[in-house]
């Protein structure tokens, strides 16, 4: 087994997804199967081969620093789930203690 149900539950917590028990029962064996399959990459002799994160090799792209228009506060807040005093209103970010 590549990955256990408990590990999947832990990863879901890290990824901020509140998976239910039934979903965990369903996803854990599928992920185990997928991870077993993708682990094939480990068969490849790749000693000394540089990694590719990006195929085109473009690096350090800069543009001129010119003033330009931007969204108005109304546009920026237009799609927000909750707004107060021209700000994004969010649930509390600190715990009780």
């Amino acid at each position: 087994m590549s990955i256990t149900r408990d590990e999947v539950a832990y990863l879901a917590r890290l990824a901020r997804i509140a998976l239910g028990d039934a979903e965990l029962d369903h996803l854990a064996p599928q992920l185990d199967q997928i991870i077993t399959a993708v682990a094939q990459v480990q068969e490849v002799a790749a000693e000394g081969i540089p990694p590719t994160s990006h195929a085109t090799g473009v690096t350090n792209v800069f543009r001129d620093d010119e003033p330009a228009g931007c969204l108005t506060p109304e546009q920026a807040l237009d799609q927000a789930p909750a707004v107060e005093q021209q700000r994004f209103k969010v649930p509390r970010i600190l715990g009780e203690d």
Partner: protein
Amino acid sequence: MDSRSQRSAREGAGDLTRMTAAELSAALAAREVSATEVTRAHLDQIAAVDGRVHAFLHVAADSALAQAAEVDGRRSQGEPLGPLAGVPVAVKDVFATVGMPTTCGSRILEGWHPPYDATITRRLRQADAIIVGKTNMDEFAMGSSTENSAYGPSRNPWDLARIPGGSSGGSAAAVAAYEAPLAVGTDTGGSIRQPASVCGIVGTKPTYGGSSRYGVVAFASSLDTPGPFGRTVLDAALLHEAISGHDPCDSTSIDAAVPPVVAAAREADVSGMRIGVVTELSGDGYQSGVLSRFAEAVELLESLGAKVTEVSCPHFRYALPAYYLIAPSECSSNLARFDAMRYGLRTGDDGTRDAEEVMALTREAGFGAEVKRRIILGTYALSSGYYDAYYGKAQQVRTLIIRDFDAAFGQVDVLVSPATPTTAFPIGERADDPMAMYLADLCTIPSDLAGNAAISVPCGLAPEDGLPVGLQVMAPVLADDRLYRVAAAAEAAFTDRWGGPLLARAKGL
């Protein structure tokens, strides 16, 4: 203008939907038909068939007709117009569009209206193309069937019980069902070429960085590539040219001239070209009718004067596993932005829960099963202790695949393979079998990992099921024009052999 489009224009609205974008452009320029008539004809077709096809998540009838009226007005004033003036285009719901919802096939973005246009959207508007609506897709472009859309699957116009491919399945189905002559999609692992193949139309993944990602909801940033769909190779080339080119808003955009794709599509000449058949993209797991049609396509190209050889790309067999580490890793990072704070769905905010709890409840409610699988897989592949064995190793395999391509393109001008291992499968067959679904992209993934260019063009129907098969052509980075040269030559010869376009045989509608 040829006699066919003149005839179609005279015959009225019913036939306007059968015309190609090139024919419509010519008829519009000659003022034989107005943009309003063309747009109405396509909106009528959408109204007539989309209840069955479900290619669209949003039909923008009012804005399309307003845009068409504006184009007609400017034409009557003799003002200069863009290259696709008055030609309808369908836009995958991954592209940000001001004035239209952009959901990416997800509940988490249900009803979201972006505050800016994607560069591709802006270029379509600048080309004076008429945006008729937003097309269905697998949620966040993750899938090969549109079954992962939160809004239900699209259906294949060849057989409504079958998948239209994915993730850009709505765009492919819209073009195949004559709801629009053109559509844009995105290709991350095959999401343009695979749906084009199974719907019997043309679809191109341009060179990575050749078309802008600005305003494209990100899935896997090092792979995502917008590109065109059309019913003919020339139409795909016209759209390819209109949407491509350097964009300062996308730091991975290539600052180089757009390859001469339209000229290549018109030349349609493969004489003297060196074409390599990829040994590894064949064999077990491939449907026999796909292999026989592919073999015929290769013989056809040879008869047209190409020099065909077999070329081995030994690391391609590791492309699929490498992709299913790299793409989920990037997705797990990109989709962290859906945090229920600034836009999109927010669930469970009852005043007692803190932000992290609300975030987790929202992501649980707003993401579908495949998106969750990939976020968790990516989180695993990037976690310390597993990074080197999975993500790091996949990145090295990516280098080896690029080297395979480099070696192959040292011997040949283009590579060819089937576009997909099978024809369109029935809706539901692979819906809860992720590994089986992933195999649909077996042939298309190598070009995504290498960032080069590839196209799928129809090469016939599989004898056993009567469904379309696609020929994939792959070309080096920024040699996109070679795709069109080969695909157009094959298309012309096949159309002669078939006595007309393959799509005329589609019986699903």
